[in-house]
């Protein structure tokens, strides 16, 4: 998301340029913001070169993708002109979205973009578990995956919290219920139970 504007990988040392003043005073309701943000995640799916199309049993985000995106095949080397246009369109959508955010949303968005796991600590952790050295790319990949993982848990926990009629800050019981739900969806490794697809 926003490829042209990010200057650091994993929020490292980079300035995240944000449009200066939100012109629109209407707040974007949380569910619409989620939808639009997921659209940016889905943009990443367009770049998936060889992954299988998600099945019905996969997470909700995939099912809200437009059909055109599902049929698109992506070139493996370089970017074709069509792909560049899609990127530019996505960037434009992001700019529009960011320019209509309230101050609170902007603050949160900035922290969302900038937050990251410290590379050194991550490297030390992986190397300790692995018992050998790992490359920089491995640390980058693992940090990225871990952040997405955190996002999945927190979002599920927020859903649980809302469903139980409670408010943030998230409590341990929300976190535990979220983990239980994600585990049954097969999104948390560690339990090699059989994931039932159809029933």
């Amino acid at each position: 998301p926003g490829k042209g504007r990010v200057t650091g990988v994993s929020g490292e040392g980079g300035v995240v340029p944000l449009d200066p003043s939100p012109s629109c005073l209407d707040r974007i309701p949380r569910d619409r913001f989620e939808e639009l943000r997921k659209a940016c995640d889905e943009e990443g799916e367009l770049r998936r070169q060889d992954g299988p199309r998600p099945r019905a049993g996969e997470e909700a985000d995939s099912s809200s993708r437009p059909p055109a995106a599902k049929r698109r095949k992506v070139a493996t080397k370089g970017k074709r002109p069509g792909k560049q246009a899609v990127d530019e369109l996505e960037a434009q959508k992001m700019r529009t979205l960011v320019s209509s955010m309230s101050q609170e949303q902007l603050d949160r968005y900035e922290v969302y973009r900038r937050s990251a796991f410290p590379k050194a600590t991550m490297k030390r952790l992986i190397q300790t578990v692995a018992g050998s050295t790992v490359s920089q790319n491995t640390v980058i990949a693992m940090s990225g995956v871990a952040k997405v993982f955190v996002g999945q848990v927190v979002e599920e926990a927020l859903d649980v919290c809302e469903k139980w009629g409670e408010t943030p800050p998230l409590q341990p019981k929300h976190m535990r219920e979220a983990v239980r739900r994600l585990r049954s969806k097969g999104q948390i490794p560690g339990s090699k139970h059989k994931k039932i697809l159809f029933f």
Partner: protein
Amino acid sequence: MADEEEDPTFEEENEETGGGAEGGQGKRKRLFSKELRCMMYGFGDDQNPYTESVDILEDLVIEFITEMTHKAMSIGRQGRVQVEDIVFLIRKEPRKFARVKDLLTMNEELKLARKAFDEANYGS
């Protein structure tokens, strides 16, 4: 860093019955407390998340990383953790897969950009 050899999955189960201020982790220092707080806020939690929740998340993250590392070591080139293995492991999860591809692509582009920048400076 012998503490990090402790089995985190075991510790996580303990944490629920242990309760109390130390979060059931025993002697392990909290590695990602500050960063996780920021992340939780960024993903939608309150600006000041509960410490207990942050601790639970930290245990989850460490368990996740440990699992991924062990699995990566068991496939591809044995005993080594390589990027290709990580990508293979998460191939079935669209969000994680897309994110890793993005990050690695961006990293390559940045490396090329920096290289071009340095070469431009070398001339002057």
